[in-house]
């Protein structure tokens, strides 16, 4: 973990309420897709955790949804502004797997960490299928980006306004998707449904209200099959067999 000050390179609204922020500077502590940063914002006591959607040696990209004071403040930030972050937090996804065909399943803003993951898995020579779920057609974003990296990208909307009607599990059923391993990030009901209904092995990235983000306050601990684990430290990615629903 490292505290660094990064510069905002771009901060763009992709669709209503969803933003993409690119930060430049010392990002060397980001080592794996699925890790996150904790951002300090003016007049807010606690930092705000965000998963990293993409990174290279000099920059990182965050996708965020405006849901409260912190994200509203971020949405009004502009190019050149400095931002203090704790970097290199959490375990990230395990890309060192022997399975050859993987499914990346994302719900809403939860698709964020899957983007860099898709890049890495594609580079590793895996066959990558992507399943993305949104509430409605108007909330769809980043699909084209995922299409560039995947063999197939499938869409579901809860209201049926685009793609398969329903959730990720409905989509998997309807399109009879096959895969050897999956990675998932999204709302808790989606993750629960995947862990309980998909037979293939997999791992999921959880979200939790955090105090510190680096393992000292026990604010985000969950009981797992292998003892209490901190979402911020041992997580946010857990093997599906570890989670107790």
């Amino acid at each position, binding site marked *: 973990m490292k*505290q660094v000050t990064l510069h905002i390179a771009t901060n763009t609204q992709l669709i209503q309420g969803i933003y993409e922020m690119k930060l430049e500077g010392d990002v060397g502590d980001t080592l794996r897709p699925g890790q996150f940063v904790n951002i300090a914002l003016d007049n807010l006591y*606690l930092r705000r955790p965000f998963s990293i959607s993409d990174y290279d040696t000099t920059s990182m990209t965050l996708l965020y949804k405006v849901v409260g004071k912190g994200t509203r403040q971020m949405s009004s930030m502009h190019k050149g502004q400095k931002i203090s972050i704790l970097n290199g937090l959490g375990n990230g996804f395990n890309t060192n797997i022997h399975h050859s065909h993987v499914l990346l399943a994302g719900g809403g803003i939860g698709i964020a960490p899957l983007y860099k993951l898709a890049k890495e898995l594609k580079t590793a020579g895996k066959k990558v299928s992507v399943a993305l779920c949104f509430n409605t057609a108007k909330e769809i974003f980043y699909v084209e980006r995922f299409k560039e990296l995947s063999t197939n990208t499938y869409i579901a909307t809860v209201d049926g306004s685009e793609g398969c009607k329903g959730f990720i599990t409905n989509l998997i059923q309807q399109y009879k998707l096959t895969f050897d391993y999956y990675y998932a990030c999204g709302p808790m009901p989606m993750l629960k449904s995947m862990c309980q209904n998909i037979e293939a092995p997999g791992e999921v990235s959880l979200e939790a209200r955090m105090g510190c983000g680096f393992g000292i306050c026990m604010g*985000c601990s969950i009981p797992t099959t292998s003892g209490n684990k901190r979402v911020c430290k041992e997580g946010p990615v857990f093997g599906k067999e570890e989670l107790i629903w």
Partner: protein
Amino acid sequence: MVTKLSVNLCGILLDNPVIPASGTFGFGMEMADIYNLDILGSISIKGTTREARYGNPLPRIAEGERGILNSVGLQNPGIHSVIADELPRLKQVFHKPVIANISGFSIDDYAYSCEKINDQEQVGIIEVNISCPNVHNGGMAFGTSPKMAAKVTQAVKHVTTKPVFIKLSPNVTDITSIAKACEEAGADGLTLVNTFLGMRIDIQRRQPILAQKVGGYSGPAIFPIALRMVYQVAQTCHIPIIGCGGVATAEDVIEMMMAGATAVQVGAENLRNPFACKEIIETLPQVMERLKIDSLESIIGIIK
């Protein structure tokens, strides 16, 4: 070595008065990756109970103006694991006496855990937490009645030889009566204060943010109240005080000491700024120079 920063806490010479507060520093290992822990005066380790505890359901964290609301509920691996695993690990990265923070659900619990921890050479001070607002049938129940506070103090003193500090709750009408009861029951010192009971509601979802509905509030927002309580207790009692509550800067440390604290704990601030204690310790000499303070010992309790 006595320096202008050092303080004597019940016969233990601390290089400086800055101590991370229990529950905001884990058992030190995560922080050891961030900076050299030996710069600290001491460390108050995560509150420990007789048995291992998971604590309360999530969400356990909410926020307020300049503060954090928590209902962690004493998650810890239990006294035996702390002695067998956590203390030896901490010993590798922190080479000074630590403060062991002990909680319980009965007087028996407190006595049991304190007796065990008393045998640990690494432990310099035992801090008895009778003020956790996040557990039922214990914790704060012992800290809100002078009679119960005295009973816990006596029971712990009976089975220990190390200095015993009682950590007090601010959720009382008159903290001096609790403090006095602990002093009379034999406490060697007092840590004050623990968190203030608070609450936040998610007005969109029409639900409390915390799963437990209420939790303990800490952070700079509570500093003036904690300071007032330290001052009041210092006017009433003669045993040393560790001041705690919203401390975020070197100036806050000096203010706490002027009010009567011999040492100072930094809590919530560690969560938002992992370098908080380090920065405070590094800034103290400059602030002292500016304020013409020759030694920190000389300002303890100068406000009468």
